[in-house]
């Protein structure tokens, strides 16, 4: 149970901000500044110490045995953020890696993701970027905004963690120095000890000597070069639990008296019209769902099978008309220019035109949506995988008519997130079912529900027009992108104060297409936000998941039209982008760009910047016996500094596989308002048998600012594969997924 510390900012009652209240708050700048100036800069009581433990500020806790515990506000969904945070603290503190531990941080302003206020990377989801810019750091603390998304965990928290660890180290050093009657400058920390000549005091003993009321000595950050762990691969802290089955995921929670629930949702954009169940079935009705409970999930599902339910859809049911509308919009003259420079109409030369399209995608986290809820005495507790504690608190509170601080969310490990678990819909459902049946409830969606009631990656149709001079120079780039407004769809459900009633053209929804790295005299990007009924969500790398395919497929087609080598053509337009050029060359070198591929195969290359990092990929692939075969993938990344290089490599590997999977076989289509692909036999995810025979990763040395890692490796996969297959077969495919176009 999180206790409200005495000096924490006052919580607004039932703080689910209305659009009106929010605008007033955010608009009244003077009032805000005065109000926030009175707030404390740190929250020493944010976190509780166990018996014998010493809290050294909100980020470091030391046990009597010397164990150092770090709170992690970011969701651990496989990206290794728990170990990343522990590594930054351990390094600055001078701790022993074997003695590091982590805990989920409580929902408290001290741990809010204030890094999104800077949004320096420009790689955050549009809505969040807007929120961050509009509000600034103090307002994010006031909102107590916790969010894992946009590949920003390390860049957002790195400086705070280091500063906190340096302060904790200074306290430990001062305490030990006093005990030894020497100057604090004479001692240092090393591998879990405070050291003075031959004297070594373990952290556990030093922590006990720290006087919490004493102002800490001014901390001095260690230089990068003197930090023993920075840039070193370390064993991840969460992996032992993940090889023996003991890691606790959303559905691994067990509560006394708990029952299990099964759920069936209506079509997208639908609402429940009527439902009935045989006697003895505990039927629970929701806005667009019905649920039933049982002593096991199996019993609950059998009970749900006996429920008759009908749903109604207002407006046009999702179907094949959406693809037609998108194609019409891309070919038409609607939408609005959201980025431009120069005059594209005036660009004179050879004109190349191409249309590209991508389908709806589902997240298919291996862990389907799940939550466990218990409601006792006007308070609710919910356990589950979640990427935003804040949205979970707000929405569960609102659904139950409680104040937000009468809700406690216990985050578990996420069995995959990829953006899907930013939304707490399963938590809200579990809470409502628990309330209805008067018992603790564990809700586990079936895979069919998980796909059918996803927050889908939006489908896209784009028309690209490029102008080349006779000497192979790109001088004009014009694009019209028809894509539903993802940011507004997310905001309408989750951040109503940021939502508008009408979808508006905006650069955020076509990120990666509103700006390209290549030098071109005249540039224009037009966004047409086509309306459609499916709920849209953030899917790993968000808009970049489609913009990479469009931009980099088109660059290859332009190179072909210019009669140029795809690598040389790109480099020729990157002369003022040395980091981009270096990443591209690194991928090309390791991917044997200059060497011929085996017979029947060819290499494809792509470059894409997102989330503050620059990625490039070379894929060697071909079509063998009517089947796409991927021989080799080389994925290169410049993410500034790679603090935990093995985690970076894991993310590059995973992003490549997920990107190739989407490019080859993934697609959601709708009929009569429902997704047609509901399990893995129809929603085809890449398996080991079809994955690259060799997958190499290259971390490009760089002195750039800390960039994202979880998502930037994904956008290059589809275009590099498409470019390789076009080169290998002579047939260019501009519509994903690729497999069906190449399958004999």
């Amino acid at each position, binding site marked *: 149970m999180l206790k409200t510390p005495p000096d924490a900012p006052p919580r607004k009652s039932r703080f689910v901000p209305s659009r009106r209240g929010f605008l007033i708050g955010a608009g009244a700048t003077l009032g805000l500044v005065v109000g926030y100036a009175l707030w404390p800069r740190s929250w020493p009581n944010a976190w509780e110490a166990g018996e014998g433990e010493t809290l050294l500020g909100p980020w470091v806790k030391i046990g009597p045995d010397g164990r150092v515990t770090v709170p992690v506000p970011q969701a651990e969904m496989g990206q290794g953020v728990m170990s990343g945070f522990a590594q930054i603290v351990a390094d600055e503190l001078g701790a022993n890696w074997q003695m590091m531990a982590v805990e989920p941080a409580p929902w408290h302003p001290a741990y809010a993701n204030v890094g999104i206020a800077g949004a320096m990377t420009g790689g955050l989801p549009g809505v969040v970027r807007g929120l961050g810019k509009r509000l600034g750091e103090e307002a994010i603390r006031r909102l107590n905004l916790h969010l894992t998304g946009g590949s920003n965990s390390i860049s957002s928290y790195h400086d705070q963690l280091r500063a906190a660890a340096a302060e904790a180290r200074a306290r430990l050093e001062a305490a030990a120095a006093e005990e030894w009657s020497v100057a604090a400058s004479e001692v240092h920390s090393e591998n879990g000890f405070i050291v003075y000549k031959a004297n070594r005091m373990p952290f556990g003993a030093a922590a006990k000597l720290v006087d919490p009321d004493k102002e800490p000595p001014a901390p001095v950050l260690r230089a990068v070069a003197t930090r023993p762990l920075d840039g070193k691969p370390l064993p991840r802290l969460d992996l032992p639990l993940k090889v023996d089955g003991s890691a*606790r995921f959303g559905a691994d929670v067990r509560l006394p008296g708990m029952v299990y629930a099964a759920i069936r949702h209506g079509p997208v954009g639908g609402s429940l019209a009527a439902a009935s169940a045989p006697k003895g079935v505990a039927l629970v009705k929701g806005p667009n769902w019905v649920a039933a409970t049982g002593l096991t999930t199996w019993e609950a599902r059998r009970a749900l099978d006996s429920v008759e339910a009908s749903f109604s859809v207002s407006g046009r049911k999702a179907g094949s008309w959406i693809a037609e509308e998108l194609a019409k919009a891309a070919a038409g003259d609607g939408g609005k220019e959201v980025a431009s420079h120069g005059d594209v109409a005036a660009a004179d030369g050879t004109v190349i035109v191409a249309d590209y399209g991508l389908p709806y995608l589902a997240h298919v986290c*291996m862990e389907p949506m799940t939550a466990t809820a218990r409601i006792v005495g006007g308070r609710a507790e919910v356990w589950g995988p979640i990427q935003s504690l804040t949205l979970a608190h707000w929405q569960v509170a609102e659904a139950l008519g409680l104040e937000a601080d009468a809700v406690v969310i216990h985050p578990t490990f996420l069995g995959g997130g990829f953006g899907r678990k930013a939304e707490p819909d399963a938590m809200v459902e579990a809470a409502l079912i628990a309330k209805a049946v008067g018992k603790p409830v564990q809700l586990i969606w079936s895979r069919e529900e998980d796909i059918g009631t996803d927050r889908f990656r939006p489908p896209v149709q784009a028309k690209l027009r490029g102008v080349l001079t006779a000497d192979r120079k790109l001088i004009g780039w014009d694009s019209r992108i028809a894509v539903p407004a993802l940011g507004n769809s997310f905001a309408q459900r989750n951040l109503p104060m940021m939502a508008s009633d009408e979808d508006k053209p905006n650069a955020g929804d076509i990120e990666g297409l509103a700006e390209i790295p290549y030098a071109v005299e005249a540039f224009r990007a037009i966004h047409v936000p086509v309306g459609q009924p499916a709920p849209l969500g953030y899917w790993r790398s968000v808009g970049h998941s489609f913009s990479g395919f469009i931009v980099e497929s088109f660059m290859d087609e332009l190179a072909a039209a210019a009669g140029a080598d795809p690598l040389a053509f790109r480099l020729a337009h990157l002369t003022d982008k040395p980091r981009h050029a270096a990443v591209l060359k690194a991928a090309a070198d390791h991917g044997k760009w200059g060497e011929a591929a085996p017979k029947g195969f060819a290499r494809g290359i792509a470059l894409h910047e997102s989330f503050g990092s620059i990625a490039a990929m070379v894929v060697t692939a071909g079509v063998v016996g009517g089947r796409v075969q991927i021989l080799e993938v080389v994925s290169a990344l410049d993410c500034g500094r790679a603090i935990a290089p093995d985690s970076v490599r894991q993310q590059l590997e995973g992003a490549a596989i997920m990107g190739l999977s989407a490019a080859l076989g993934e697609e959601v289509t709708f009929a009569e308002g429902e997704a047609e692909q509901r399990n893995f036999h129809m929603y085809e995810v890449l398996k*080991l048998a079809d994955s690259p025979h060799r*997958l190499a990763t290259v971390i490009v040395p760089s002195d750039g600012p800390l960039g994202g890692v979880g998502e930037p490796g994904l956008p290059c996969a589809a275009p590099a594969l498409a470019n390789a297959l076009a080169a290998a077969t002579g047939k260019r495919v501009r519509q994903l997924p690729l497999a069906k176009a190449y399958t004999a």
Partner: protein
Amino acid sequence: MTRFTVNGNPTQYQLAADTPLLWALREASNLTGTKFGCGAGLCGACTVHVDGVAQRSCQISIGSIEGTYVTTIEGLADDRDHPVQVAWLEKQVPQCGFCQSGMIMAAAALLKTNPNPSRADIRAAISNICRCGTYPRVETAILRAAELMRGG
């Protein structure tokens, strides 16, 4: 009847005989290391051993395996020291970890019948889905586990 041995413990479930083994293990025995991923035998997250053979536990009813020996990830080894688990940690395979119990059980069963698998053997045998894309490390770790089992 629904009597069989789970991780060495004689067990009788007081559940309907058509209950899939997956739910009996997870919700009656609280052996939550075995995961639900698809309910259709497609993803492999629920893989356990029945009499030493890798099986998708969402597809087996408890009434159909009377008298068998079921092993879950919790019963694979003491102190997570099965060669597959050792190799998994050495190669830092898991990311989110959700599919990994099933993946490890599938790998352990493969190595029991084929102690020296080629890459092609591994690709043919492991059809489990991993959304995080740990496949390259899964392949490497299985080769390493085979080496460890041979004493290397």
